[in-house]
């Protein structure tokens, strides 16, 4: 087709020239631009995330602190019984499950809610042009806000049981940054898959539930000395370990950071390739 060729509407009237049409940007450029445009619109997703939490707890006195309270009770109850069960000191065990459960809730929250990244925003996506990535940033940020509410019990717990906090507590900063990055690719990938295949969310929900029991969160790795080497390879152990160890004043397992970083790189790559390929289909799948 020549660039100067004209095209006409149904009545035969010439309405334009082919040269007027800009070349369609590639999917890769489109996907990259979407992620960037979403990121710089932090003023949208931070507000939408706050709005989500306000909606969820509308009319409630404690609001998101209800979860904090539930966690407090659960940690106290499990701490007393399971420390006996695993023959561990209460003073070591309670800080261990407290931090482990809160970090797991952050990770599993992003995985579970990641499935509804786009389906929950159906109205917006079908009515208003907005970068798709805004919805993923929103889910991750929402879970960070919930984490911040839940985390208020941590300093008290650590102080109460005199956990020896070291300088390496600052390692929680890179740990949560990298965990959030993982949350981002999970939201993008699971969000797209769940929009297309509506059976994905319940499957993910089941898997996450099983992972909670398979990952050393409420049981210490030392409770299973024979399988310790194998269980330490569970990627989710690494995810928890990098954030939990510094809070407990110990060093993460040497394998934890490498495993987490490999997950981040591989996951981000797969998720991005999916996004490049299917971004334009999301609105059609809803």
């Amino acid at each position, binding site marked *: 087709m020549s660039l100067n060729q004209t095209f006409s*509407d*149904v009545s035969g009237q010439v*309405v334009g020239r082919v040269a007027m049409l800009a070349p369609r940007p590639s999917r890769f450029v489109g996907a990259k631009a979407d992620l960037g445009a979403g990121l710089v619109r932090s003023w949208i997703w931070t507000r939408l995330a706050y709005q989500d939490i306000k909606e969820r707890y509308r009319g409630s006195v404690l609001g998101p602190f209800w979860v904090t309270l539930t966690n407090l009770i659960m940690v106290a109850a499990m701490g007393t019984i399971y420390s006996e069960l695993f023959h561990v000191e209460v003073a070591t065990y309670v800080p261990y499950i407290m931090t482990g459960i809160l970090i797991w809730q952050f990770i599993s929250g992003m995985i579970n809610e990641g499935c509804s990244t786009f389906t929950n925003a159906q109205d917006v996506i079908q*009515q208003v042009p907005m970068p798709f990535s805004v919805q993923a940033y929103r889910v991750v940020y929402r879970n960070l806000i919930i984490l911040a509410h839940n985390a208020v019990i941590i300093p008290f717990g650590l102080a109460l049981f005199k956990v020896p906090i070291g300088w390496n507590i600052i390692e929680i900063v890179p740990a949560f940054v990298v965990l959030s990055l993982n949350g981002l690719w999970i939201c993008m990938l699971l969000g797209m898959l769940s929009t297309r295949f509506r059976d994905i969310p319940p499957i993910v929900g089941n898997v996450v539930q099983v992972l909670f029991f398979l990952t050393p969160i409420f049981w210490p790795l030392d409770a299973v000395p024979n399988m310790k080497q194998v269980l330490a390879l569970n990627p989710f152990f690494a995810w928890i370990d990098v954030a939990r160890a510094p809070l407990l004043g110990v060093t993460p397992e040497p394998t934890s950071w490498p495993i987490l970083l490999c997950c981040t790189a591989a996951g981000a790559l797969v998720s991005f390739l999916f996004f490049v390929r299917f971004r334009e289909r999301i609105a059609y799948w809803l």
Partner: protein
Amino acid sequence: MASIYLHNVGVDFPIYQAGARSLKKMLIAGTTHGNLARDAHDRVMVRALHDVTLEIENSERIGLIGANGAGKTTLLKVLAGIYKPTNGQIDILGHTTALINSSVGLNPDATGRENIILRGLYMDIHPRDMRERIDQVAEFTELGTYLDMPVRTYSAGMMVRLAFAVSTSFRPEILILDEWLAAGDAQFLGKAQRRMEEFVTRSSILVLASHSFELIEQWCTRAVYLKDGLVEVIGPVDEVVARYREDARAS
């Protein structure tokens, strides 16, 4: 400068839900105006738009008419960038503001003022900029003390006022409006029309879909008649409306 070019644009919706086959049979029996086809994977597709070629230039006000299911809203969504066409090419110059639905982004429990800010988010307007203009927006809506009441107490027409005022508070280069605008009363429509005229004299584009010929005749400089996803006629408003009326009478 704003412009819109569509060249052979087509939009096919895949139907994934179970029972697509029976749905297909039902549709083929002639209950709606949609076109159905099958793609290479033998999936059932609804052809919402087919071979739409259209050029819209600076300062034009285009009216879209057609029966239910003719593809008006789909075309608006293509123009808004919500649906990437499955066929053909589209080239849009200028920032697009889409008002497909008046209630999107409104929180029924928040006040009118809070919702002005909130709705602005969805229109890509930073809360800081919106706050600067909030008084102007409030004035345009003429909702007075209702602006401090929760939006769930609003009527459809009041919601339209709020949504329109927010979306046009920052002069949009391309404004896309679906039929809901007609829910506004005559006085408000007059006011809205004056605002639109002001915009288009400063080289913006308006695309409006409506079943109200009166509205189209008052607001638009050109009309497009869509039928079963195809452009039937493009031309001066009175001619296109006359053609549509003829068709409606014939069927």
